[in-house]
């Protein structure tokens, strides 16, 4: 953990980890768990306990449903259970007992169309979403292949840029055909310009200081178009895909096999990092075991990175397509929040990358005045970097308040839409 510097006058600078470690393979897991983002009813139609599945087989909630998972092993379904993820979404956890063999499913057709992307690649590593391309209300003009990490310490995406530039190149070609979008940017830190330049995309460098790698910051600084508070990224005509996702798509078209593995960074308690390639759905415990990271009671197991990750409650939870890192943190190192009030020191105001008056925002959020917080104090401008909580001298869980505020507002909006 990076502490406040002795000379506190200067802003703390958090740098991304720009030195990717070599990738090692995690042995094939005995079981994998795939989280199908559909509740019990939707999940029941996907498969039944005891069904045999092949590697690369698509398990969809129903024939016309957009939600599906891709089996990453060959074996049989051993359990299906309802699961609620950290954002409160109803999922179905499908556990597959692997038989140690890889028997590839042949359902993947290599037609480079948007339907293929929607049908097979939404569960690819890096969680790419192609829904914006299919939305008739949105015109997508730019695809940004993001070679930056979404959090500190992680290097999974950079690994892919470094080692799989040729796959990214074919991925970009396929993407052009699939979506008809010509302008493809690739954002990388300065030390990865060389491999990135072989991919055929327009390469842009991004500074290595957190949070410059986040999509909203890239839109502002690299693309030169500010995403305003009332629109989504897709509204501005840009879609962000991680380098890992693009490489997976390229590899799929080269080999004819759907992507079932994922590169992620594992960070031990001592801060040491290593990159591993593992099957999607591998239990976190297996990944940690392969890296010789021990987990004890009261530790934190974080999916993602230290600034924006989500703490997992069990090591049986699986590696998901969007999991770029796993951080194990000792109880003694973890940041504790307090219920102290804001003392108005203004550290958060000065560090906020989008200049939100966080000192006022947090007062409104604490008082549950979410609508005022959004209307007057720019709640929806927040890019969710977590720096305000990081510097807060009162140790207020500001980031949590912000996420809660956004969530509550989304509930209100949904309710209003339902009433109309």
């Amino acid at each position: 953990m990076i502490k406040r510097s002795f000379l506190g006058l200067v802003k703390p600078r958090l740098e991304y980890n720009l030195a990717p470690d070599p990738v090692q393979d995690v042995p094939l897991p005995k079981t994998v768990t795939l989280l199908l983002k559909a509740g019990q009813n939707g999940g029941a139609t996907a498969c039944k306990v005891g069904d045999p599945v092949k590697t690369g087989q698509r398990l969809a909630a129903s024939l016309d449903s957009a939600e599906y998972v891709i089996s990453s092993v060959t074996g049989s379904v051993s359990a299906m259970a309802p699961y609620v993820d950290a954002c409160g979404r109803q999922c179905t956890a499908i556990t597959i007992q692997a038989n140690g063999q890889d028997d590839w499913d042949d359902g993947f057709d290599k037609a480079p169309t948007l339907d293929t992307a929607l049908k097979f690649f939404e569960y690819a590593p890096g969680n790419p979403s192609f829904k914006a391309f299919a939305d008739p209300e949105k015109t997508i003009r730019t695809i940004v292949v993001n070679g930056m990490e979404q959090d500190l310490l992680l290097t999974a995406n950079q690994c892919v840029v470094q080692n799989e530039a040729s796959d990214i190149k074919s991925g970009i070609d396929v993407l052009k055909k699939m979506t008809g979008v010509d302008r493809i940017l690739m954002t990388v830190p300065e030390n990865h310009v060389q491999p990135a330049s072989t991919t055929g995309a327009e390469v842009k460098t991004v500074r290595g200081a957190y949070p410059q790698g986040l999509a909203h910051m890239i839109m502002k600084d690299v693309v030169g178009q500010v995403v305003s508070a009332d629109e989504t990224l897709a509204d501005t005509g840009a879609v962000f895909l991680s380098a890992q996702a693009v490489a997976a798509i390229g590899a799929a078209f080269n080999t004819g096999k759907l992507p079932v593995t994922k590169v992620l960074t594992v960070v031990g308690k001592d801060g040491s990092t290593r990159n591993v390639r593992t099957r999607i759905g591998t239990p976190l415990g297996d990944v940690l075991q392969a890296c010789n990271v021990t987990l004890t009671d009261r530790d934190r197991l974080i999916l993602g990175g230290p600034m924006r990750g989500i703490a997992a409650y069990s090591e049986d939870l699986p590696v998901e397509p969007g999991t770029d890192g796993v951080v194990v943190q000792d109880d003694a190192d973890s940041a504790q929040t307090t219920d102290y009030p804001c003392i108005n020191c203004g550290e958060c105001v000065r560090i906020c990358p989008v200049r939100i008056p966080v000192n006022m925002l947090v007062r409104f959020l604490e008082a549950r005045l979410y609508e005022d917080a959004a209307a007057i104090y720019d709640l929806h401008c927040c890019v969710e970097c977590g720096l305000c909580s990081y510097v807060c001298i009162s140790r207020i869980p500001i980031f949590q308040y912000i996420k809660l505020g956004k969530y509550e507002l989304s509930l209100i909006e949904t309710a209003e839409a339902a009433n109309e």
Partner: protein
Amino acid sequence: MSSQKKLVVAHAPYWHDGSKISTKNYHVMIAALPAVLMGISQYGAPALGVMAFAMACAMIWELFWNLVLGKSMSIGDGSAAVTGLLLGMLMPATAPWWVIVLGTFIAIIVGKQIFGGIGFNPLNPPLLALAMLVISFKGVFDFDEALRHYDLGFIMTYPLADLKAFGPAAIEKFSLGDLFMGRQTGAIGSTFGLGLIVGGLYLILRGYVRWEISLSFLAGVFITALLFNLSDSAKYAGPLFHLFTGYTLIAAFFVISEDSSSPANFIPMLLFGALAGLMTVLIRNVGAYVDGVPFSILLMNLANPLLDKIRPKAIGKVVENA
């Protein structure tokens, strides 16, 4: 499945830069030490007594309030101790015990706790107490009167009082060097200019005090005093005299930068400090009080919420044109 380990979940971020309110307050106390030690070396045990008693009283009032309201204990954060110390530093060494008890009551209970405690005080607690005491007990804060039994080997009249009563001609006897080195009468902890500046720079460099407020306050005092001086040097003292006398330096580095009652945005911080500085010299030169510091800063404290509305547009903010 495998043996379940009990993991702790929490919301991101999982890192923190390690800053704490108590650390900050301890550093404020450390930074105040040069001026405090100078005060003790000049006035001896009574000065030590005043400051120690003020700190103790402030903490007891805080504890008392915590107990009465059944709130969680907050004396550990050091803010009550800092309030007490600052109030002690702003008092003459001869301040009677009941003035200190009353003053710390005003600072802690009236100034801070009735608004909700730390972070909620609209006014600077020690200054509010000082202002109310100065108005209520003029004799205690008349430094010429209060310190008449002391002879410390330098001119034992209060420079600002001389200026107010007799004009700039009366202050020619003070050398700026003496004033800067603390060879002047005044409150215990506010006369040693060098010590206060060293302490203040330490706090600024460590990031515990916002330089924008401190420096703009000093600039405000300097420029306003300079303008007065240029307009009529026979009637108004020079800018350096105003900087090195009275409560100017302690206010600039230890008082005005108190977090809750000062703005957080850049331009408001500059305005806040500069206007407080301007008001200080206005009160000193044309107002009724010998030293304008308490009143000018309290006045600006009231303007703080309004000033802090001047802020940069958040990136991505949607401006709806009416």
